[in-house]
């Protein structure tokens, strides 16, 4: 596939943006600037970036608890994302949602879900709306290897298939659900094998390669827009950090080896893409360094933005319940 140079560079930029965002989050979290759960996306950047760049702004995504990578990949505003993590009014959800519920409806980000698997039917419904309305937008949903065992995934994939909906089921197989290996909980070798149960294409992709993710998604989008129905894409990837910040202090024992982690880090998605761009002469090492630094700077600014934003006022706790308000009991 011939990919526009701007997109190739944007891939790198978005991946660095996610990586650096997460690094800053880890830093300020361990400094105690906020205390709630956050699930770092480090190591998995190519999955969200490759797939989201295959979408238009008018396409929709929905995601899960590992929630910072998806909106950033789709073009979300990191200031508002960071402010949300700080529970501030300038956050995406005015401080009401937090890390697990980032959303930006204005650019098709229908929101992350803390309940595992729960956004899959919702995204399927956005696809249904597209079909009913004769629109040509598509809907893509991120879910994990663990989530694939939820009934919601089964029901949604079947629905999308029998109704031929423009939906992309994007499984981020990072090998584990918290501490539990997908090999112990998913009865098939690859989540994408399950596509056979729904008569849709199941595509296994190297999730460390953003171009591979992009190409697979472009095909799925194409299929979806043509009215040919849904696709299940599995990006094989790995999470470098703890399941969620602070979990290391809680759990009793190990569930994966340092060797495994090291092995996977050798195939770092940013590194792979950067090397490729350099070897193809699209960017120089300095260009790449500049992208790394610029994105870090933007993330630092985001932290500043978040720090300077106000906390919501007490009365705001009662707002945003209803579109057509009713008296609160």
């Amino acid at each position: 596939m011939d990919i526009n140079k701007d997109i190739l560079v944007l891939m790198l930029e978005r991946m660095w943006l996610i990586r650096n965002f997460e690094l800053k989050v880890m830093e300020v979290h361990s400094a105690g600037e906020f205390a709630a759960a956050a699930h770092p996306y480090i190591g998995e950047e190519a999955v969200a970036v490759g797939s989201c760049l295959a979408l238009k702004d008018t396409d929709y995504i929905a995601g899960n608890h590992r929630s910072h990578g998806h909106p950033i990949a789709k073009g979300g505003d990191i200031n508002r994302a960071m402010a949300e993590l700080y529970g501030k009014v300038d956050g995406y959800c005015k401080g009401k949602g937090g890390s697990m519920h980032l959303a930006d409806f204005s650019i098709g980000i229908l929101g992350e879900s803390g309940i595992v698997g729960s956004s899959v039917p919702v995204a399927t419904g956005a696809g249904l709306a597209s079909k009913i309305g004769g629109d040509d937008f598509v809907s893509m949903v991120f879910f994990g290897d663990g989530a694939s065992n939820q009934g919601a995934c089964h029901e949604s994939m079947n629905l999308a298939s029998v109704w031929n909906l423009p939906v992309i089921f994007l499984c981020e197989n990072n090998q584990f659900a918290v501490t539990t290996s997908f090999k112990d909980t998913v009865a098939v070798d690859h989540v994408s094998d399950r596509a056979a149960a729904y008569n849709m294409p199941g595509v296994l992709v190297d999730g460390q390669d953003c171009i591979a993710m992009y190409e697979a998604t472009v095909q799925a989008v194409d299929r979806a827009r043509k009215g040919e129905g849904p696709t299940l894409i599995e990006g094989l990837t790995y999470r470098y950090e703890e399941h969620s910040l602070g979990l290391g202090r809680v759990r009793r024992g190990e569930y994966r080896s340092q060797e495994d982690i090291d092995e996977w880090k050798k195939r770092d998605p940013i590194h792979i893409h950067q090397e490729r761009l350099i070897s193809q002469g699209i960017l120089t090492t300095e260009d790449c360094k500049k992208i790394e630094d610029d994105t870090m700077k933007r993330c630092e600014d985001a932290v500043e933005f978040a720090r300077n934003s106000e906390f919501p006022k007490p009365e705001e706790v009662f707002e945003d319940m209803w579109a057509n308000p009713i008296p609160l009991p």
Partner: protein
Amino acid sequence: MTQTVFIEAINHATKEEMRKDSNVFIMGEDITLSVYGATQDLLSEFGDTRVLDTPLSENGFVGAAVGASLVGKRPLVETVSSFMWVAMDQFISQAAKMRYMFGGQAKLPVTFRVSMLYGSGAAAHHSDRNYPMFMNMPGMKIIVPSTPADAKGLLKTAIRDDDPCIVFEDGNLYGTRGEVPDDDDHLVPFGVASILKPGTDVTIVAIAGGVIHALAAAKELESQGVSAEVIDPRTLVPLDKKTILDSVEKTGRLVVVDPAHKVCSAASEISSIVAQEGFWSLQAPIQKVAAEQVHIPYSQALEKLIYPDKDKIISAVNNTLES
């Protein structure tokens, strides 16, 4: 005004709203052949893009309705109270919570029509009257019509409302008749109780199918010289507290009739509100007349025993009068 059967009124509301707004579509199980009785002739009029028979995947299609509502559609979903359990996550985690959780970004104009098929030997798996559970969770408007006119007017309001609405339809009322305004814009507002019978001695607040028993009781009490005021809240979220409190201020006595299980019921909630905000009006203990805290038995020899009925309401009223 036309004499209309309750379930027909629902059908009419659906058709009118689907004609009015092409974003309204309907889905559910076996709706094209109208197996549950309220969806006849929709397919022929609106076609199979807007009238969808679903797979047996309630969690999937309830969630799909939620998702479609987020991006501009106005889905109407037909299901049965007892089938909500399998879809609970999409009702609670998504429909109810989404708007607040996303700081007001989400708008969810989705309406669920839910039949409650108790009272006719459907047994424990098909007889749930579970609106109290949904009242406990903020985020959904809870509608409980008791007349054909309200069934139509409230459903139309629900479809036009921009929040998730659940219309709990009492199957025991499906066959009842009543005058229904012909007006295409006959809308019944949420949060406005109706005083079905004025009275001065005791207030009877009755919900859904409980209303007909309350009216029967009130009639019989009238002949015994007791003047009961019968109030139907019509919507439980929002709840018209004021009409209830005003009535109790006048009568000093309250009986709440609720076909749901009595523990943590709508009757419990209304009792607790009056015990707090209307306490000084009360001249007697509040009486809750609700379903016994057992499952719904199949045998007709047993089933009717557990629901509120005219006699139980009369004896509850008498209890308040004796004190």
